Each structure stands twice: as C-alpha cells, then as structure tokens.
C-alpha cells in the first residue's frame, strides 16, 4: 500500500502538534490520500496531499501573524505600508521588517530584473536539487539492510591469461552477465570453500517472471519472482513481517516448494489477511506453500520482485548460469581479509562444467552491483547540473553587479542623508538573501516537478528508484546550496561597492559615460566563462543526441514495423512434454495466420532485446578454434515463417518448414556473420555444425540483425523449434497488414479460447518493445540535452543583460557620436564588436574545455567520435548565432537613439 509523502507528513506533525486536532487532521489527510490513489493515481494523490499540507501551513501562518503583529511593535500606516517613523531605535525586529519591506519594494519596482534573477536561480537550484535527490537515493543512501557494509557479492574473476582471453571472446552482454552469475553447482563449491568467512552466504536467480495462481476462481498473474536459497535471506538480515524465512531444508532437492510474498502482493491479493501463512498458491502451476510475508520496504534485488521462491523451483544443472551469490562477512573478520581469503581459496577451484572453468571468485560491493550502470549515468547528470548551476551563479552575479552599479547613486544619497555604512550594507544584504531564498523555494518546487517527471520517464529497470523522493537530506542540500549561492552572489557586488567611493560614483553618475574599466572587465570575463561552459554542455548534449539518433537509424536487418509481439507461458501441469507444447503452438499459429489482416505469424524462444539470451557452445566442421577461443554463440529456436514475420532476409537457402522436425534430417540456419567467421568465404550452405553433440546441416544463411541497444552483430545459430526439446512458453510475432495494436485483442482472445490457463503478457507492437531497449541512451540524451538547452538560455540571457546594460550606460555617448556624424551602421558595429569579441573568446575556451568532456562520454557514444566535427560545428554555430542575436538587439536599439533625447537623458 502506498504511503503519503513522508516529508509532508512530518511537516504536518510539526505544525499540528499532538492533540486530537493534529491527529485527526493527519488521519483526514491520509484517508483522502488513499481515496485519491484509487481515483486519480499515486502521483496526483501525492500532489494533492502536499497541496493540503501547504494550505494548512499557510493558513496557520496567516492566523499566527494576525494574532502576533501587534507584538512586533509594528503598525501599518493607512496605505498598508510599515510606518518607519514608529519604529524605535534599537528595535531589531521592527528594523528587519522594515528592511524586508524596502527590499520587497525595490524588487517589485524592477520586475524585469527580479524575474530574470529569480528564473536563473530557480533553474540552477531546481535542476541541481532534482539530480541530487536521485543521486542521494540511488548512490549515497546505504542499502536498507542491517550492517550493509558487510554484504558482498561474489563474482567471477579469470584466474589466468587464458581465462582473460576467453572472457574477451564473449560478446559484451555475455561477459557482463557472466562476471556476476554462476551455476548452482559452482555456487555450492564456492560456498563450501569459504564457509568460515561468512555468517551466511546464499544465491538468487532473478532472471524470470512466473505465472502465479491464487486459487481456482482468483485467476493467475504474471509476476516478477526471485529464486532464493535459505542462506541469502539470512545474509540480508531482514526478518519477515509474517511467518518465517526458508529453512536450510528448503534448499534440498525434493523439498516442499515454498514462497514468500511481498507486502504489496499480500495487500493487493489477500487484503493483508493475517492467516496467509501456510496457505497454498501455485507458481507455474505447481503448488507452493506460503512461508511468510516480507516487510513493506524490502526490495531485493529490485522493487519489482513480488515473490521469493524456494530452491525447490530453481534449476540446479550446470547449464543455467543465472545465480548471483551474496554473502554477509562475519563480524570478526575485516572485509579486506575476507576478500583475500576468498580469492586465495577459489583460484582454479575445480567447479562444475560450463563457462566457470579456469576462474576464481572475488568479492565486490553489493550496492555497486545493484546500482550497476546507473552510477556513471547519475554522475554524468550531476556534473551537468553542476555546470548549469555554475552558469546560473555567474548570471546572477552579473545581474547583481549591473543592479548595484545602477543604484550606486541611490546609495550615495542614502549615505548623504545620514545612513551608516552598516545600515546600507544590511539593506543590501536583506535584498540578496531575499532573492536567493525565494529562488531556492521556487527551485525546490521545480525540483519536485523534475523528480516526478524523472520517475515517470526513467526506465523501469532503473535501480532503487522506489526510494527517490525529496526528503530532509534534500531539503538541507538545497538550503545549503541557496546559502552558498546567496553569499557568493551577494559578496561580489558588496566588494565592488566598497571599492567605489562616493566621489567616484558621483562623478560617474554625472558624466554618464562608460563605467570603470575594471568592473567592466570583470563582468566581461564572467560572460566569457558562461559562454564557454554553455558550449561544453551543448557539445555533450549534442554528442549524446547524435549517438541516440545513430542508434535509431542503424540498419537493423529486420523490420519491426507492423509486428505484434506477445509472450505466452504454458502451465506445466497440462504441457508436460515438448510435444504438448508443439501441438498447442502449431494450432495457435495456424489459427492466428487465418485471422484477417495477418501476413505471417511465428514463434521464437524469446523476443529480441527482451533481456533474454541463450547461448550454446558449438563445433564447426573444418574450423579449428584458436587455443583459448570460445565457441559460444547465441542459439535461438524459431518456427517456420519467423524470418518472414520479423522481416529478416534469407540470403541463401530456405526457410524452416514442416520437414524440419525430430524425424527429419537435423538442420540449422546461421547468421551471415557466423558464416563469414567460421566457413571459408562464408560458404556455409551444406556445411555442418555440431550442437549438443549432434551434427546438423546448414540449410540457410540469414542476414545479420542488430537489435537496438546492442553494439555488435554477434553470430546467431537458428534451430527449428520442432527439433528442440523446449517445453515452455514462447514469444509470438505476428506481421500484420495494418496497425499491429488493432490485432492484439483478437490474438489474446484466441489464446484464451484455446486454453484459458495459458498466460499472455508483454502484448504490444514490437516497435514499442525495441523503443524500451534504448531507454538508457534516451534518458541520457534527454537529460543532458535539457541541461544544454537551459544553459544556452542562461548564457544568452547573460550576454543580453551585459550588452543591454553597457548600451544603456552609454546612451549619452551614443547621442554625442550621432551628433558628431556617426552613422547608425557604424554604431551597431561599434557596439556589437565588444559582444562578438566576448563570444569568440568564450567559444575558443569552450572548445578547449569540450575535448575532455567528449572523452568522458566516449563509452556512451555509438559509432561517433568524441571529437565529432559536425557536433562541434553545430554547437558552435548555435551558440554564436544566439549570442550574436543577444548583442544585436541592444545595438540596434542604440543606433536608433535620438541624439537630442540622449543628451537630455542625464
């Protein structure tokens, strides 16, 4: 069950107090929140809860102020303004209130300046706070387990150079997968060798989803589940909310199958029924007794997991490399010593057959593993946000400076009328504090929106996102940020002002010419810095966007348009053998093909880019592998028409058909890259390949396919489904004449009419599934692109501000120039020149700074060099154009100055 936002709740507790009023108000809001979750969804409910909390806060505050204003020693004059005369000397609160009032008045008097400053601060603080919120929840917060620093992951490490070479031979996904996953026998061997290092050690397999049945009439659901050994849950150190964890006996072959439920599932399907323990649910048609319910915040390995299943349902064979091993190091052994001991004892340990040979184990950080690729991604976002914040600060400093100079006259008058320097400083300070606090509040509001948007758009697999929320740490962070920004931003103009004596100010004010050369140069260098930083972000965003585009444009070798895909799962009880499954799918495919609008239909073991990957070691006739060469390649079972349904090209040979079953001659099809790599001149047709100890003849060469998200065209071996001994569910692909989503209901209905117990999931156009596969690059390009756009905007505003100010200061000078015969074009050129010099300098420095930026992005780039000239050219052009426009507008205005007006202006 969803909880109301924690921060808002604690805020309410704080303002409401303990009695009946406070408690009942909290209850009212919570009841309303649950109603909203049902009616409007979780996000809207959170927003409304916050709305309620803020409304309460605001009205309480108003009521309190109304009650206490007389106590402030403050009266409002007839016009509603504070009455300065009535404030006694030494009345600090009254004085501050008056300063605040002056600050508000002067900010309101210059709405343009105030809006620009606030907008800049809001963007800078908002973006940084939002990213920090995510970084804090995902990277900084320790895992939600007791003593999380003693939890470690056991991963593979090649033990010798042959192992290293073999490793490099696997494709990218495989080596990453294999580093962290072992077979069950290997796990048992490791566990045996290192037992005295760990308090508990266990393994889990989270690769699958399961059909979970809740009783005869309650139906089944496809849920993400994790197979766990008893030791794993003990190692994590979390006690169940109800019932008990699995005992060691549950790991034994032939043990009673048992299951632990997530809190969410328990609430959703059983309404939190306390008598759940001991009841039976089915998993893949097999009864499992419910051992217990895990606590609400238990999320392992991810928040999506809804059932933890005992080893009775796990595969123990040497063929399934799906187990991750997690241990809790004993309290009396330092983790470093444990690490050394594990490495020493597992080197070359003869583990079971499979890809594990010639390797040892090492200990890795569990949090690092669970967070995975999100870490560099988040650091990338955080540094982009940092650059944006820097630009924003520079902008605000510049804005403050122009304002301070503009108001130098006012300060002089105040001093002349008897205001002490301290009094004037306090006034200025109040203003800058007010602006930065306002900016921080607005930034915080923006951060709320950005975090909500992030959660909406982040890939489902993004780790630990369940903990992402604006909390007290984040509040403190943004408050600290605002303070630092406020001080930085307030100090510079104060410093400048202190150097500017009364005489200088008065002289300048009367002369009405260019301001002091020194302060001008300082502002210029700030603009150059801004432009350089903006260019760096533009180049980064450009590289990532172009890389994403390259990935989307890639010649894929298949045509995902107009293909409907869905995955089916067969209940084990009714489809015990491969022949049963074959009969079912034969009939299903025949009926789907008969539906109107269907061009072709086929099935395969899994859908492309679905995260599944089967491989097998093979032997190719006439090819002698190098000493350490891995002959391990992707191995996919497909039905006839698969190549047509996917829009793949059969380069040579024929499609699979009815002949290719167990009785017929054993055949395979190979991908083009496999043919090229292992057969002379790629002439694979008629050649033979040995799989699972049996020689098979190659009957077709299929054009290579590249699924989005993959970086290389890896060799693939296709096997006719009828030959394989596969019993389970399959992914279906239906090529349609019209929109594939139109056909989805009829195909689902067809499956249900043939067998209501067959589960169907992942129904949708293949395009959509593939689009999901690039969610990572998409998020990268989107976020860094957004940062680049925001920084461009800020930098241009900065240039515009400085130019407008400079022109404004020199109105009189322009007038004199016109009188002396200068032509408008000449004045435009004169004014723009300074802006263009600054732009050129900024771009030059920016290019130099962008080179290392491109370097750090290298691993994210797809067929693109970090120095891609087109990206650099475009970024430079955009910045130069925008900056020139920002210079031209004030310059044109200056050229149209009426000399008489200009001369009269002082």
């Amino acid at each position, binding site marked *: 069950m969803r909880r*109301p936002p924690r921060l808002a709740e604690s805020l309410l507790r704080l303002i409401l107090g303990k009695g*009946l*009023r406070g408690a*009942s108000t*909290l*209850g*009212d809001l919570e009841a309303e929140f649950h109603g909203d979750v049902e009616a409007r969804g979780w996000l809207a409910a959170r927003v409304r809860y916050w709305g309620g909390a803020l409304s309460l806060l*605001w009205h309480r505050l108003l*009521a309190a102020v109304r009650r206490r204003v007389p106590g402030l020693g403050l009266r409002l004059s007839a016009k509603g303004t504070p009455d300065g005369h009535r404030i006694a000397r030494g009345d600090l609160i009254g004085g501050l209130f008056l300063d605040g009032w002056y600050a508000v008045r002067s900010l309101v008097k210059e709405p343009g300046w105030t809006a620009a400053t606030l907008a800049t601060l809001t963007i800078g603080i908002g973006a940084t706070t939002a990213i920090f919120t995510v970084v804090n929840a995902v990277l900084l917060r320790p895992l939600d387990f007791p003593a999380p620093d003693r939890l470690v992951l056991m991963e593979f490490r090649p033990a010798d150079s042959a192992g290293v070479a073999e490793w490099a031979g696997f494709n990218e996904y495989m080596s990453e997968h294999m580093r962290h996953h072992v077979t069950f026998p290997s796990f048992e061997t490791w566990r045996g060798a290192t037992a005295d290092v760990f308090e508990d050690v266990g393994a889990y397999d989270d690769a699958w989803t399961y059909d979970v049945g809740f009783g005869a009439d309650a139906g089944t659901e496809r849920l993400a589940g994790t197979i766990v050994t008893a030791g794993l849950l003990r190692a994590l150190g979390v006690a169940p909310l109800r019932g008990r964890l699995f005992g060691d006996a549950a790991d034994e072959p032939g043990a009673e199958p048992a299951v632990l439920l997530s809190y969410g599932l328990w609430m959703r399907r059983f309404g939190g029924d306390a008598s759940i323990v001991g009841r039976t649910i089915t998993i893949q048609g097999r009864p499992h007794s419910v051992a217990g319910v895990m606590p609400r915040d238990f999320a392992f390995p991810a928040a999506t997991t809804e059932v933890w299943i005992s080893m009775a349902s796990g595969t123990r064979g040497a063929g399934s490399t799906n187990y991750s091993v997690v241990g809790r190091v004993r309290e009396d052994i330092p983790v470093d010593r444990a690490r050394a001991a594990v490495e020493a004892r597992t080197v070359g340990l003869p583990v079971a057959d499979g890809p594990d040979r010639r390797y040892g184990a090492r200990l890795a950080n569990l949090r690092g593993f669970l967070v995975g690729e999100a870490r560099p991604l988040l650091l990338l976002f955080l540094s982009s946000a940092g650059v944006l914040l820097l630009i924003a600060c520079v902008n605000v400093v510049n804005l403050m400076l122009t304002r301070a100079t503009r108001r130098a006259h006012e300060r002089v008058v105040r001093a002349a009328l008897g205001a002490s320097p301290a009094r004037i400083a306090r006034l200025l300070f109040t203003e800058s504090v007010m602006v930065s606090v306002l900016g921080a509040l607005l930034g915080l509001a923006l951060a709320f929106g950005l975090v909500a948007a992030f959660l909406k758009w982040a890939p489902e697999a993004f780790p630990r996102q369940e903990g992402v929320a604006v909390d007290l740490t984040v509040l403190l962070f943004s408050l600290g940020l605002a303070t630092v920004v406020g001080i930085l931003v307030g100090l510079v103009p104060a410093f400048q002002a202190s150097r500017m004596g009364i005489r200088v100010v008065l002289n300048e004010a009367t002369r009405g010419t260019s301001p002091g050369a020194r302060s001008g140069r300082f502002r210029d260098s700030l603009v150059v810095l801004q432009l350089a930083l903006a260019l760096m972000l533009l180049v980064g965003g450009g590289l990532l966007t172009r890389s994403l585009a390259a990935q989307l444009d890639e010649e894929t070798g298949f045509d995902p348009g107009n293909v409907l895909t869905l995955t089916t799962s067969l209940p084990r009880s009714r489809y015990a053998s491969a022949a049963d499954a074959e009969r079912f799918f034969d009939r299903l495919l025949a009926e789907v093909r008969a539906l109107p609008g269907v061009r072709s239909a086929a099935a395969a073991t899994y859908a492309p880019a679905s995260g599944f990957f089967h491989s097998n070691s093979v032997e190719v006739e006439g090819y002698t592998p190098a000493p350490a060469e891995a002959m391990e390649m992707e191995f996919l079972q497909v039905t006839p028409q698969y190549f047509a349904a996917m829009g793949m090209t059969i380069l040579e040979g024929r499609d699979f058909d009815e002949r290719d079953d167990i009785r017929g001659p054993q055949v395979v099809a190979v991908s083009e890259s496999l043919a090229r790599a292992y057969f002379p001149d790629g002439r694979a047709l008629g050649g033979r390949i040995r799989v699972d100890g049996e020689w098979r003849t190659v009957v077709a060469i299929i054009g290579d396919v590249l699924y989005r998200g993959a970086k290389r065209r890896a060799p693939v071996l296709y096997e006719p489904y009828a030959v394989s001994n596969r019993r389970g569910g399959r992914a279906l692909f239906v090529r349609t004449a019209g929109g594939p989503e139109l056909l989805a209901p009829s195909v689902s209905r067809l499956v249900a009419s043939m067998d209501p117990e067959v589960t169907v999931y992942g129904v949708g156009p293949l395009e959509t599934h593939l689009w999901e596969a690039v969610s990572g690059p998409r998020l990268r390009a989107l976020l860094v692109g957004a940062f680049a756009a925001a920084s461009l905007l800020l930098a241009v505003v900065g240039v515009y501000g400085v130019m407008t100010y400079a022109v404004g200061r020199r109105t009189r000078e322009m007038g004199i120039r016109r009188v002396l015969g200068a032509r408008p074009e000449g004045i435009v050129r004169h004014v723009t020149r300074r802006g263009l010099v600054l732009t050129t300098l900024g771009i030059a420095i920016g290019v130099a700074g962008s080179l290392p930026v491109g370097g750090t992005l290298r691993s994210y780039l797809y067929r693109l060099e970090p120095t891609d000239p087109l990206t650099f050219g475009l970024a430079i052009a955009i910045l130069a154009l925008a900056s020139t426009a920002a210079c031209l507008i004030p310059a044109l205005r200056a050229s149209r100055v009426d000399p008489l007006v200009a001369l009269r202006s002082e």
Partner: protein
Amino acid sequence: MRRNSLLGTFEQVVLLAVLRVGDDASVPLVREELGRGLGRAVSRGSVYVTLDRLEEKGLIASSAGATEPGRGGHPRRLLAVTEEGLAALRDARESLLGFWSGLEAELDR
C-alpha cells in the same frame, strides 16, 4: 454591539455546514458540505483554521471518533455546534435580517 455579531461570514457558513452534516460531522464532510453550498472548493487550511478558531471561541465542541482503517491509526474529529454557537447563529441571523428588511424595493429594482 453585542459579542455575537462578531461572527464573520465564513464562520457563519462553517457553523451552518456543521449543523447541516449533523451527527457524524467530521472535517472532510463539513468541507464537502461547504463546497456544495458555496458552489466552489474551499481550501483545507481555511476550514481547519476556522474550526479551530470557532472551538477556541466555544462555539463548537469536538470529540474523538472511533479509529478506522486507512487513517494511519488516527482518530476522526467529530464536531458539534454548542449552545453558544446556536445562540451566536440566531443573533447573527436576527441582526442581518433586520438589516435586510425594508430594502426589498431597492434591491428588486
């Protein structure tokens, strides 16, 4: 001027809403009733603050209701208009009606 005429318009409406809801008057129900009667949503904060003020003036009394699921273990606050509250309403009505009377011709023009 008598003490009771100090009732503000919003305070009057809130008191009337509490009476309209009747025995089980809780804050959300009162707020709903207000929304219905006034034809616009009323902000939560203003309702709570007004109720607190009315209770401080002794015009309403509140008691704790039973705890129900989905409220995080927090009780409901049940509201009732006190005798003083009723008297204040009566006074307010009288003085207002007195002000209205005799102006029909002016208002219906």
